[in-house]
């Protein structure tokens, strides 16, 4: 197996931008995870004067009630990454399970699952999220569940398509003729051959989830203050005077969202090319 992985890594590292993005992403994740070690300030308690511009003491200044912005950004990144990761996990697990069942068993089960998938996909996305956020008590877990719910149909369709095409391959047929049981064919043959495209798709879902969380929190339906999230930090930038006069209150959060999403997308692109040995795109 190691030979496979080294070839994979080689193809991945051809994308210089993706390697750089991977390092940047790793740095941001480490900083977010180790937030208490990096900053002495609390993200929720005031530690200085109101709306101070960046200084030696407060690297990114303070917000309207005197909380350290750098600490808030660090902890907010933590929340955003966690929400993104958990909702991607839920979406991927649900999608893979339903896609496998749908593609493998076919028939009426397939019709029912795909019908439900199309239904979920045809909901107006942001409206659904808003309504759901309004019905359930807003908070981190409801956001994770909502985003997980709206993101799985893409994964399910991808997996189903893959299963359908794999089922027609000779190596599945040769397993059937060898008398191997359905569980073996499903989990030892079909699933491993589906992991690569799912992983690539999942990076995309991850990026979209972070954006959606930011959008929801910006609208006040997401992570509730005082817990910081990248979205509700931006929420503080609704007034014109802050937008024009106090950029340290919103610019850093915007930049972090931008960097997270673009880095994840670059890594996803490189992964897709790395998994496909035939694609020799330069």
């Amino acid at each position, binding site marked *: 197996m190691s*030979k*496979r992985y080294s070839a994979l890594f080689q193809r991945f590292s051809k994308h210089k931008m993706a390697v750089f993005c991977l390092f940047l992403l790793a740095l941001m994740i480490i900083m977010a995870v180790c937030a208490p070690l990096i900053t002495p300030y609390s993200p929720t308690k005031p530690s200085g004067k109101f709306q101070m511009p960046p200084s030696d003491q407060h690297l990114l200044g303070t917000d309207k009630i005197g909380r350290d912005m750098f600490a808030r950004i660090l902890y907010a990144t933590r929340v955003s990454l966690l929400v993104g990761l958990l909702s991607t996990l839920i979406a991927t697990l649900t999608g893979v399970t339903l896609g496998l069942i749908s593609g493998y068993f076919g028939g009426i089960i397939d019709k029912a699952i795909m019908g439900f998938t199309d239904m979920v996909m045809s909901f107006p996305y942001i409206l659904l999220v808003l309504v759901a956020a309004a019905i359930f008590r807003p908070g981190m877990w409801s956001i994770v569940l909502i985003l997980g719910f709206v993101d799985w149909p893409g994964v399910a369709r991808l997996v189903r398509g893959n299963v359908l095409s794999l089922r027609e*391959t*000779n*190596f599945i*047929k*040769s397993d*059937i*003729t*060898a*008398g*191997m*049981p*359905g569980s*073996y064919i499903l989990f*030892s*043959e079909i699933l*491993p*051959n589906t992991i690569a495209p799912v992983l690539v798709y999942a990076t995309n879902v991850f990026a979209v989830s972070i954006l959606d969380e930011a959008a929801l929190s910006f609208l006040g339906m997401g992570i509730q203050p005082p817990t910081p999230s990248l979205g509700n930090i931006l929420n503080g930038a609704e007034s014109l005077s802050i937008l024009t006069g106090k950029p340290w209150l919103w610019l850093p959060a915007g930049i972090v969202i931008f960097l997270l999403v673009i880095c994840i997308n670059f890594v996803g692109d490189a992964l897709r090319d790395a998994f496909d040995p035939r694609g020799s795109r330069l």
Partner: protein
Amino acid sequence: MSTPIIEAQHLSKTFSLQSDHIIRRNLFAAVSDVSFAVYPGETFGIVGESGCGKSTIAKMLMCLESPTSGEILFNGNRIDNLTERARRPIRTRFQMVFQDSGTTLNPRKTIGDLLREPMLYHHIQTAGCIEGRIDELLQDVGLSKNVKNRYPHEFSGGQRQRICIARALSVNPELIVLDEPVSALDVSVQAQILNLLQTLQAKNNLTYIFISHGLGAVRYISHRIAVMYRGRFVETGSCASLFTRPAHPYTRALIDAAPSVDEAALTRKKLLIEGEVGDEIPEGACPLIRRCPLSHEACTRFLHHLSPIPNDHGHESACLRALEANHG
């Protein structure tokens, strides 16, 4: 005569070209009313051009497709109407080797894994002696035992076909269906694989059903041959009688169309057929009617079934003018 190892009775398969799941319209008969029996130890060749239904027969025999009508008997017991679960234990007794060896092996598994898994699942070998058996299998198909940790894409087409054969052999089958096993290979490699198949047949007491569009390979390896055209058997017979005394214009045309450097064959008058396989044919007529130089009025009304040729044991033809076919 002993009981056939596998027997097909009036096997038919129709595909619906328009799939709307409710009414089956625009039916296409891939295989119509094919019956044959294969006896232990022999090699039964099926030859015919692309799209004539050879592979559909193979898939039905392997229970990968269920026949639209007809029965398949394995050692006298019906296998086509069993559930997959009930069929699984006897699956090991008939195996298949596919044409495209590149897609028959899971690209993510090592050769060792590919050979190991079916044996472990069917408890054919105990964990202790399985590695020895894998080495033996690889040796039997002419590969060295240190290929176990390598992946399918590291091998050439011929080597991969050897691996496929080893995998088919690993579960100790009685019958192997070979669906165009050498068609994708170089001629020199084809000969090696054919010889290997013959050696293995003698060593393991195997019965083969050998499917090919190449007359040469079928002639080389088969004891008995069936010639297929548009989903039907048009002629069956022993290898020798079929090639020396073809009793169907289509067989004759196939033989004559093969390039040859033989002096006698070059000077002999050739029987050639014209037109395309897809030409429309009238209901109830001989399938070859539009292309056959021997066809006459009776051929339009009378769909002839295989019937014995006088004074030629085991040789059957579906042509009204069977005796003229060889001289025509």
